[in-house]
């Protein structure tokens, strides 16, 4: 055991951050959970709005609107993650062997990442306008001009249960470049000798990807999935800008929370909503963090 005299300065150096993180992350989470368990009544009618305790949770989980928002979140997350991973991997594969002007392609693919969701959302709101035919604007109008009328869609406003998939398009646009960068770095980290060896063995290019390269990228893929997954759960800005926070069609827990808090003056329900969101994220992230932490300690 090392002496406290040695480690104490390090501890003191981190202490301010520990206090701040403890206060602003963990203490506030605790306060939020506390709010979520409170009983409340409507301040105008005196009717019970939140019965208090775990009933607040069963009440929200039982509400059709919330289930709809969860369903939307699921659709959004799946389409966003799959779309971004596929697109990013595809770009990385196209670039990884080195092409002329690689830097240009890389920069273009990555540029949406530097733009805020708000700025991007403003453009995509227009691009994803639902009107078709005569009054079409945005992408639908472009499709008509290109004589691809069949591609027109009402996007996220369509009556389909899976319309939220359209909301993933701008998100895929923004983050595919990021996944590309991750994979590209991964590819470049694999030595050329391994490919050569496989080639000498007579493996086809596809087989080299399938059996030699992709398996080595799986840790990167996992990190990317975790990052994308938690971004998707938190996604708020984009939907706020494109559909507005009150849209039922495009409702997800984060937008619903804004409405609960301020349109419905119901902070308890908003706190329940936020807590459930935190739990969902934690279920995915905590195992990842714990595993990473263990593997580092054993290193």
């Amino acid at each position, binding site marked *: 055991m090392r002496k406290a005299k040695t480690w104490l300065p390090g501890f003191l150096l981190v*202490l301010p951050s520990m206090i701040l993180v403890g206060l602003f992350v963990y203490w506030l989470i605790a306060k939020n959970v506390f709010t979520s368990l409170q009983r409340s009544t409507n301040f105008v009618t005196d009717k019970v709005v939140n019965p208090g305790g775990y009933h607040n949770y069963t009440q929200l989980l039982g509400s059709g609107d919330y289930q709809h928002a969860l369903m939307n979140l699921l659709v959004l997350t799946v389409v966003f993650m799959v779309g971004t991973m596929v697109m990013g991997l595809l770009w990385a594969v196209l670039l990884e062997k080195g092409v002329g002007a690689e830097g240009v392609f890389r920069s273009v693919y990555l540029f949406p990442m530097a733009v805020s969701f708000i700025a991007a959302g403003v453009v995509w709101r227009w691009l994803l306008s639902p009107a078709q035919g005569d009054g079409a604007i945005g992408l639908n109008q472009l499709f008509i001009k290109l004589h691809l009328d069949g591609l027109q869609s009402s996007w996220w406003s369509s009556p389909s249960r899976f319309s939220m998939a359209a909301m993933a398009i701008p998100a895929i646009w923004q983050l595919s470049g990021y996944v590309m960068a991750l994979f590209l770095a991964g590819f470049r980290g694999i030595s050329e000798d391994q490919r050569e060896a496989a080639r000498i063995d007579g493996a086809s290019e596809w087989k080299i990807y399938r059996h030699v390269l992709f398996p080595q990228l799986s840790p990167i893929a996992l990190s990317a999935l975790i990052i994308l997954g938690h971004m998707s759960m938190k996604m708020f800005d984009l939907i706020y800008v494109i*559909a507005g926070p009150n849209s039922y069609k495009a409702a997800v827990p984060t937008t619903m929370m804004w409405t609960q808090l*301020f349109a*419905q003056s119901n902070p308890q329900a908003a706190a329940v909503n936020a807590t459930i969101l935190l739990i969902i994220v934690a279920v995915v992230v905590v195992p990842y963090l714990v595993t990473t932490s263990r593997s580092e300690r054993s290193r």
Partner: protein
Amino acid sequence: MRKPTLLSVVAATTAALTLAACSTGTATTGSSSSSSSSSSSSAKPGGAGGDVGVFTWWAAGSEKKGLDALEALFKQKYPNDHFVNLAVAGGAGSNAKAKLASDLANNQPPDSFQGHAGAELTDYIAKGQIEPVNGIVDELGGESVFPKDLLGRLTVKGNIYSVPSNIHRANVVWVNPAVTKKAGITAAPKDMASWIEDMKKLKNAGVNTPLTIGGTWTQVQLLETVLISDLGPEKYAGLFDGSTAWDSAEVKKAAADFKTLLTFTNTASDGDDWPAATDMVIDGKAAYNVMGDWAVAEFADKGKKDGTDYTYFPVPGTDGVFDFLADSFTLPKGAKNPEGTKDWLRLIGSPEGQKAFNLAKGSIPARTDVPASDFPPYQQSAMASFKKDKIVSSIAHGAAVNLAWLSDISTAVSKFYASKDDATLVKDLAAAAKKNQA
């Protein structure tokens, strides 16, 4: 003061933060302000001075023009004051109101904010976020210049909480006669059923979009006019005091009619605002748009002539009913410059202020002593109607229901727009009423 263990550690280093975190429980009321119930203090000539931040959702179109007109007049009458425009965009204020609630919760009230007269204000009153302004209203002339009906809707427990600026009518159909002519339609339909017949004729005549809609709040507004049409004004009013059931046969019929109407409309997305829908009528792409009478300014802006380029009639079945909403301005608790706010309220309530504003915005003055002859034909007719019609309160504009109830109704309508399931709509509306009705 409670002091959890975590915080006792914290206390050592970050005193300010600890203070903030520990002193829970004490409700945050605004910083003290002159909260006498009669907020009358004699006006200072030229204004009290300082910034006057005014929050509205009049960020564009005719509404912005109205606000600009007021701003110009304010500068002229109160040169000491500096008007700060805090307009937040978003139709019928649905976004703006949530943001306002957030700012009020953050104890960052504007010096004055726009609120719809009626149930909407009760939220702010119940939360203690606005001050009575009886003094100002009396100073302006009280009941002798404002309609009793209107003041009644602004009064809670004997106190008046806002100064009304203007009155709007929501149950108006705006018509492009050149389009209706294509189907040989010349007269206004008498009731909902014949209106629907007309729309069928229009479709058959090749008009793809007989009726236009915008985002969710415009659909709520359309639904409310269908409700008035199918229930009649008395039963419609009963929806809000509990004497009419939200799942009654009439409401079901209204929901079914609403569903039929939506089969004749353009495709809208939830966030769309109203001008796009009105423009489709102006541009001859559609025949009808149900919109509050602020739309008249949109027609005027595009150089259209009343009677030839466009006509209007009450939503079929609501003739003789005035679906009412009024904008009004408040004095928030904790406003930084309450004296400046009062100058603003005095301007809003003055005959000149009301004339300048309403001429630009297309609404009618809340005061009864502004001569009608100063206004264009539509507003003259609306002023006449307001005097003799049955007055009912608008849902979409917070006159009939408070914010929470409106939010539930909006969700139900937004949901219906996707599902087109009118049985569920009725069920959701009834549930919203059960939850929010006193």
